[in-house]
């Protein structure tokens, strides 16, 4: 039984629709995180290093 996490607590998914909705929501949230990572200083640093390496 997969535990579906909502904002307050973990609840077991009741059926396949529940499970799929949860999996898709989780996936979309991670894709959003990836976009937001762009603003993280440590990620910016990696991006800059990669760009500098290419410029050389």
């Amino acid at each position: 039984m997969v535990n579906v996490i909502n904002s307050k607590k973990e609840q077991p998914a009741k059926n396949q629709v529940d499970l799929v909705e949860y999996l898709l929501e989780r996936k979309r949230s991670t894709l959003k995180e990836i976009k937001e990572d762009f603003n993280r200083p440590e990620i910016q640093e990696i991006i800059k290093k990669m760009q500098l390496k290419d410029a050389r």
Partner: protein
Amino acid sequence: MQDNQLVYEFQYAGGHSHTYIFKTDFEIFYEIKFKEFDYFFSETKSYAKYTYEFVIGVLWNPNKKPLTFDSKISATIAAIVFDFFNKIEEPIILYICDSGDGRQMSRSRKFSSWFNEFQRPEFTKLDFVLHDKHNIQVPISMILKLSNPYFEEVIIDFKKIISEYHQK
């Protein structure tokens, strides 16, 4: 693997989600995450804590270039997955194909083609198709090593989770 001309150089940024970054020849930056998914299997299972969701997304596309086919991306993803398997003890990887834009089956075929192209004999992949509330297919795949000490249990459990939901 990183010195191979057919593979983009990648950086491990670490973090809770085991983040990797690479940049293509078209100046598109991709990020790959292996996000902990320890509650996919029952937390009482020893292998639950080794379960991760694999997610790839565009981190930055400064010139708004189209995301065209690039064989080096596939090779780089394979290199990153192998690197992750070397870093983490016996991981179990789940890949869910997003159905938001209706291209989930195409993503699934691409993922399978990628796996077949770069497969090493020590890995196996299981595929299932779930259905959402609109009866739209949502493919899910699991990759693990044949040498995983919980291999049989994981396979049975994965099939059980999927079939349990099919029955409801």
